[in-house]
């Protein structure tokens, strides 16, 4: 009975960052409501490939298991998404799993997303409040603005937008859509806005906003439905105004 209820997985594997990749096929007994991660857990429990040979367990990254941490992103049947919310019942079989190709592969399906965190540091995607004394409460934020900003704050740095973007690749140093949208989030925060020009200038630097080619794959692919292309266009406007003000302005631009 379980013979007929097998799910086939074709997994692109790689033993370490330097070695070359290979494909391995696994048959996993079907269970109701299983997702890709529960299938990977089954392979880890019983690491035998489709030829009946013992093999090493497939390695992958995961955290929250509810699509908020972004760690378990991988290409599933060619599309980058989170493996925790990829339900086997909704996937075409055999199910093909590959690591995202924009990032360096660490092992099997786990990639190194450091470049995304470097990009967040580059654009100063935080509100600087640390100091030697208590700064007191910041300005209040309107409730409708808070609700709007919450949508942008859903970004989990999962890497799907960078994977989908044709301009994020080994030939370019484009920081990608996620960090650009974070600048919009922090520049609209009442306290964060006090440093907005620093973030805009970072966006105007190397690998910044200007490298976007408007393919708009990011907004189509974002699992959290973040309006990434609206953020990009909005930052296009802000940086254009900022560059005019700082070039034609009478003095150092303060606000």
């Amino acid at each position, binding site marked *: 009975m379980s013979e007929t209820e097998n799910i086939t997985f074709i997994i692109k594997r790689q033993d370490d960052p330097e070695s070359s990749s290979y494909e391995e096929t696994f048959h996993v007994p079907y269970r109701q409501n299983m997702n890709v991660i529960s299938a990977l857990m089954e392979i880890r429990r019983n690491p035998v490939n489709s030829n009946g040979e013992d093999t090493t367990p497939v390695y992958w990254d995961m955290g929250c298991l509810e699509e908020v941490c972004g760690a378990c992103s991988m290409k599933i049947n060619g599309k980058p998404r989170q493996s925790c919310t990829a339900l086997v019942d909704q996937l075409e079989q055999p199910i093909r799993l590959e690591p995202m190709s924009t990032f360096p592969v660490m092992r099997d399906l786990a990639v190194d997303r450091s470049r995304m965190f470097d990009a967040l540091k580059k654009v100063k995607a935080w509100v600087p409040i640390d100091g030697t004394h208590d700064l007191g409460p910041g300005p209040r934020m309107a409730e409708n603005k808070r609700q709007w900003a919450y949508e942008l704050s859903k970004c989990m740095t999962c890497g799907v937008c960078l994977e989908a973007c*044709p301009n994020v690749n080994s030939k370019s140093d484009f920081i990608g859509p996620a960090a650009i949208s974070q600048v919009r989030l922090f520049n609209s925060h009442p306290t964060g806005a006090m440093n907005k020009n620093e973030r805009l*200038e970072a966006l105007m630097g190397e690998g910044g906003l200007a*490298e976007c*080619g*408007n393919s708009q794959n990011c907004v189509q692919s974002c699992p959290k439905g973040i309006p990434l292309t609206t953020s990009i266009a909005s930052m296009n406007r802000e940086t254009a105004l900022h560059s005019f003000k700082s070039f034609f302005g009478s003095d150092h631009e303060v606000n």
Partner: protein
Amino acid sequence: MAGNREFFYRRLHSLLGVIPVGVFLIQHLVVNHFATRGEQAFNDAAHFMESLPFRIVLELFIIFIPLYFHAIYGVYIAFTSKNNVNQYSYFRNWMFYLQRISGVITLIFVTWHVWETRIQAALGEEVNFSMMADILANPFMVVFYIIGVVSTTFHFANGLWSFLVSWGITMSPRSQRISTYVTLAIFVALSYVGVAAILAFI
């Protein structure tokens, strides 16, 4: 500007594609359209254009320098992208891909066209209706010119859409959708003007 040269070049690329190159394209296609009113009308119009005062300065600063900056930097941009329309076959991704293909076709076409007309004029040939009629007597050249003109008008119209986004003019999805329709209409209209002129020489 030292720290953000790339930003400056990209914005300059976007601007020059519309002003002056895009404006010149419209003017050129409109003047060509005189061909539909007969040989004399076209020759008069062409003669007026080539006898403008300060012709060389106008050509240099309104056409050649901006055009070739846009073209060469554009080729660099085109070759730094990794196209993925097979995997992500969304409308805008196709437009992104076609923008790069049409850019390369347009560069080849325009360079050939400049050689065949403007450079020959500088070498003493007269650019007039019969010159174009001779070129377009060859059916291969008719196809080449039609592909070249349509690729140019597509690149301009779709580039206008990206220009509006790159300068932060159209931000909302709705405004970007409407500008898609408007620029599509511009593409159709300019293609008509350009192709009608080509067919008038045959």
